[in-house]
């Protein structure tokens, strides 16, 4: 097949604008596909990494509703709960709107009990626990902004304003955590440090969710029911579920990502099928005489159809590879921007496998009719028309 390469490339160069536009369309299709799969992967990976022995409590209405911090201590008293950690999203911005960080206020001691997979060097741990104005960060976020231990970092909030004015809190970076769950883009600080500077009814003494560690994962339904029963008929009723369900619920706020990916990808690839199929059909129609000449020279139906199929594959493979490559680059750069929402983000390796299958499928389907046309072409008819 290698000896036919000059023929393939010469044919691709025959109509460079048409070939380039077709490849560009395929690039866009695979780029979109790669990004959607990245989004889907980011959401499902976070859910996959959720601890089986953790439950999350949020406001019954929605995750953006807050509820009192006093709930934490009441939950700690529920049978089967080992520890409960409060969380508040800061909506953190570092220096520029584009630099969004996944900054969460919590109770450090409780946090480390609920999430033992987050590890800190002893001196860093001691520093974080003792300094209310301190924070810890994942390796990638620290590297991204060039932060070093000891640096004081101003973090602006998109949600909160200080009672005395201003929306920026300075926090000292005292530790870089290591974790086994893939999250190396988050930032955790003392919730109380931000809370004490807020005005009443401006986010003070309220939190967004609580994550609790339970003694026995099998008791999850019972503990969830007991927690929600505590706050039944209160102004802020709660909804408690496993951490996985909680993260999945968070994902579902955006929509059923799996269905969106499938629907968009199907529409895009169907369109691509038409575009590539049309290009190949046009290309074969323009070359009727040349195909007849090849057949005259002894090229069999199979070889001629194979040439059309391979040409279609080359176009699709080049477009697909560039598209997926761009998606990987985009995932990396978008990952930094979306770190606030998706600490674990990157193009899943399965995307390349699915992408390769799609490349083969698309090229075969797009070339099916033109190949059949080349297969059936009668030499004498084609040469007579030329």
């Amino acid at each position, binding site marked *: 097949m290698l*000896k*036919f390469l*000059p*023929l393939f490339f*010469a*044919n691709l*160069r*025959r109509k460079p604008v048409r070939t380039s536009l077709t490849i560009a369309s395929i690039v866009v299709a695979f780029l979109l596909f790669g990004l959607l799969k990245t989004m889907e992967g980011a959401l499902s990976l976070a859910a996959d990494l959720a601890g089986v022995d953790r439950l999350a409590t949020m406001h019954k209405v929605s995750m953006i509703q807050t509820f009192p911090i006093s709930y934490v201590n009441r939950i700690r008293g529920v049978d089967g709960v080992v520890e409960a950690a409060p969380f508040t999203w800061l909506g953190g911005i570092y220096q520029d709107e584009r630099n969004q960080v996944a900054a969460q206020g919590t109770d450090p001691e409780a946090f480390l009990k609920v999430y033992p997979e987050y590890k800190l060097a002893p001196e860093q741990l001691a520093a974080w626990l003792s300094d209310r104005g301190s924070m810890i960060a994942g390796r990638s976020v620290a590297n991204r902004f060039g932060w070093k231990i000891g640096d004081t970092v101003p973090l602006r909030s998109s949600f909160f304003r200080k009672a005395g004015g201003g929306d920026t809190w300075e926090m000292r970076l005292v530790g870089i955590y290591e974790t086994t769950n893939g999250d190396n883009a988050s930032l955790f600080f003392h919730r109380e440090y931000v809370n004490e500077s807020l005005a009443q009814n401006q986010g003070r003494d309220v939190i967004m969710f609580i994550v609790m560690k339970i003694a026995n994962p099998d008791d999850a339904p019972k503990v969830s029911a007991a927690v929600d029963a505590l706050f039944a008929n209160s102004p802020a009723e709660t909804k408690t579920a496993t951490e996985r369900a909680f993260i999945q619920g968070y994902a579902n706020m955006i929509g059923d990502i799996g269905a969106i990916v499938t629907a968009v990808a199907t529409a895009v690839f169907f369109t691509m099928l038409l575009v590539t199929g049309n290009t190949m059909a046009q290309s074969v129609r323009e070359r009727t*005489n*040349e195909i007849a*000449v*090849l*057949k*005259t*020279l*002894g*090229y*069999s*139906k199979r*070889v001629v159809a194979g040439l059309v199929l391979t040409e279609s594959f080359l176009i699709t493979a080049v477009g697909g590879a560039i598209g997926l490559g761009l998606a990987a680059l985009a995932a990396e750069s978008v990952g930094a921007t979306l770190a606030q929402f998706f600490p674990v983000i990157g193009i899943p390796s399965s995307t390349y496998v699915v992408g390769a299958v799609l490349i083969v499928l698309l090229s075969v389907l797009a070339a099916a009719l033109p190949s059949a046309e080349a297969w059936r072409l009668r*030499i*004498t008819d084609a*040469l007579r028309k*030329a």
Partner: protein
Amino acid sequence: MSEKKVLVRVRGLAKDYKRGAETVHVLHKLDLDIQAGDFLALMGPSGSGKSTLLNLIGGLDRPSSGEIEVGGQRIDSLSDGALGRWRANHVGFIFQMYNLLPVLSAERNVELPLLLTALSRSERRKRVEAALTLVGLADRAKHKPRELSGGQEQRVGIARAIVSDPTLLLCDEPTGDLDRKSGDEVLNLLQALNERHGKTIIMVTHDPHAAARASHTLHLTKGQLSREPEAA
């Protein structure tokens, strides 16, 4: 005069076409023997069936009835695949409109028949170079067809036809699109291939000047052959 072997034997050859409800009889029970090493010119008015006969002898089309034997092999009963392989090994085609692939250089065009063989790249290159040298276009190897004159394009077409060293060359009005000077060059080349390299050539032409270069001329009228005296 030495006894020559019959290379092409045609017996009772008929070819009919359907045109709507009507059947057009192009060739009628035609018999023909062509000796190995002959240079035969096939003349006749348009629609007389010259190209059809050429296509049938070259295995590009199937007869409605009758037999065609080339080099002792019945080609009318070969499968499509076997007929393709037979063409690749035994026949070189030269067309009126040259039919070169415009996207390929002269050498790549000439190489096309060899891509079907098991020859190595270097062996293919040697053969392509030899064929282009034979037609006097070694210095134009890298040129695309649009960068060549009509006569040069036809010579590339001839190089492509002979590169796999076929026994039979079939030419369908090879000078029909050329001026007299270029046409003469092409005819000189065909004559040389016939006389010096022993190629058997069947040439369809309207041009008596071209037919005069052949060793024999046959006239085809309404699907029937009539033999003319040997050309001078």
